[in-house]
């Protein structure tokens, strides 16, 4: 019973048709949450003592960072499921997750760098988390490239899944090692790592933003996956019917 459900979940068609119904709600929800969280954060929270108003970038920056990190695990887990149960859909999800994660990583890097200018007086600082984000970007790029240059599609899926899994094992190690390195080399100029202790009045809008980003992520993931489904199932009857109907 549960298995049957699981396998229906594994069926692209089922996914495609279900998500068609969810999409409008998801879009509406995402936008509303984000608008509220962002306006609240940008306009209705007190100014940070140390950093002035530039700290407000956190409402864009931090959730992006968190999602970029979480996205890698989404990708890896999807790949693992695909490998273990030999299902098609998870591979499509994995393929879709890669560019989204990469984009969020870039967003983190960009906003972080912008933030760095007023705070550190430089766009790039060899801070542990910056480096980690850069490495994460490389990890994503590796998957994307492998996916794109692999001669056969099935091969690409499986290879990327293996790569993502190997990467997942190493991500924490990399993070720890970079952190450790930073603790040895921490320049006196930066002290923002302490800002993890966030004033509660900043906390709720930040929380809202994180939620909004999660919705964004799901939305983008679904949209990319739907496209992938249409690509791969093009020969199937239901896709052709769907194309004609729409």
């Amino acid at each position: 019973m549960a298995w049957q459900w699981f396998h229906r979940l594994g069926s692209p068609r089922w996914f495609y048709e279900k998500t068609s119904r969810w999409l409008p709600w998801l879009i509406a929800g995402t936008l509303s949450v984000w608008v509220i969280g962002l306006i609240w954060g940008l306009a209705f929270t007190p100014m940070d003592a140390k950093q002035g108003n530039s700290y407000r970038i956190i409402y864009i920056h931090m959730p992006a960072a968190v999602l970029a990190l979480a996205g890698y695990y989404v990708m890896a887990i999807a790949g693992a499921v695909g490998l273990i149960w030999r299902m098609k859909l998870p591979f499509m999800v994995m393929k879709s997750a890669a560019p989204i994660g990469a984009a969020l990583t870039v967003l983190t890097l960009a906003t972080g760098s912008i933030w760095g200018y007023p705070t550190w007086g430089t766009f790039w600082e060899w801070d542990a988390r910056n480096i980690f984000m850069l490495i994460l970007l490389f990890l994503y790029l590796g998957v994307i490239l492998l996916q794109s240059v692999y001669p056969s599609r099935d091969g690409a899926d499986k290879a990327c899944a293996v790569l993502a899994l190997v990467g997942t094992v190493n991500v924490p190690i990399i993070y720890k090692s970079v952190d450790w390195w930073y603790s040895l080399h921490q320049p006196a100029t930066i002290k923002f790592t302490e800002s993890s202790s966030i004033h509660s009045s900043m906390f709720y809008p930040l929380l809202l933003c994180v939620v909004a980003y999660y919705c964004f992520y799901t939305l983008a993931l679904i949209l990319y996956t739907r496209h992938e489904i249409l690509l791969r199932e093009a020969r199937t009857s239901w896709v052709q019917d769907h194309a004609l109907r729409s």
Partner: protein
Amino acid sequence: MSEPILTLQELTCERDERLLFSHLNYRCQAGDLVQILGANGAGKTSLLRILAGLITPLEGRVLWRGKTIAHQPDFVRELLFLGHQVPVKGLLTVLENLRWLNRLQTRNPSISEREALQRVGLEACADTPCQQLSAGQRRRVLLAQLYLSQAPLWILDEPFTAIDQAGVGQLETVIDQHRHNGGLVLITSHQTLKINAMRHLDLTDFPPDNRVYDHE
């Protein structure tokens, strides 16, 4: 009739979105010699790779002695697979290459490697590096394995490529012998073999049905 040693059940093969053949059912007894027929691009090589377990078919399964090969780790011990390419290193001498191929399969052959080389007419250049061999000579290094393996199942993909006619004659006798010793030989070749009592498996008999395969 005797019990089949190799059975192909409902095999369907797809290469990059294109079906090559569908519902391929076939059964071979020990002592059979099967030539696989088909035009260029028909899917002969693909089929042989499926039979060797190197590719998993889109559908169907391959049974060896009644069990799916995927679940038999020891199936490979009974298999000799010679493909299109020649797994021979140009920098190693002929003898070294042959010895290596032999070791890899952990065989304990009845005759020595040198003897096998002599059978394929390479005794003269046993110690010359393979990059200095002609096309046919390189191929002969590979074919020397036919004299060394005790595997009952031989899968040969166009073994006669670049081999001169004398050589082809020799090979045909070896293959015939093996099959008379109760072996099973699956072979592709665009030349007509001069061996009697061959069976033929024509891929055009199993045209792709364009049914849609979405696994649900």
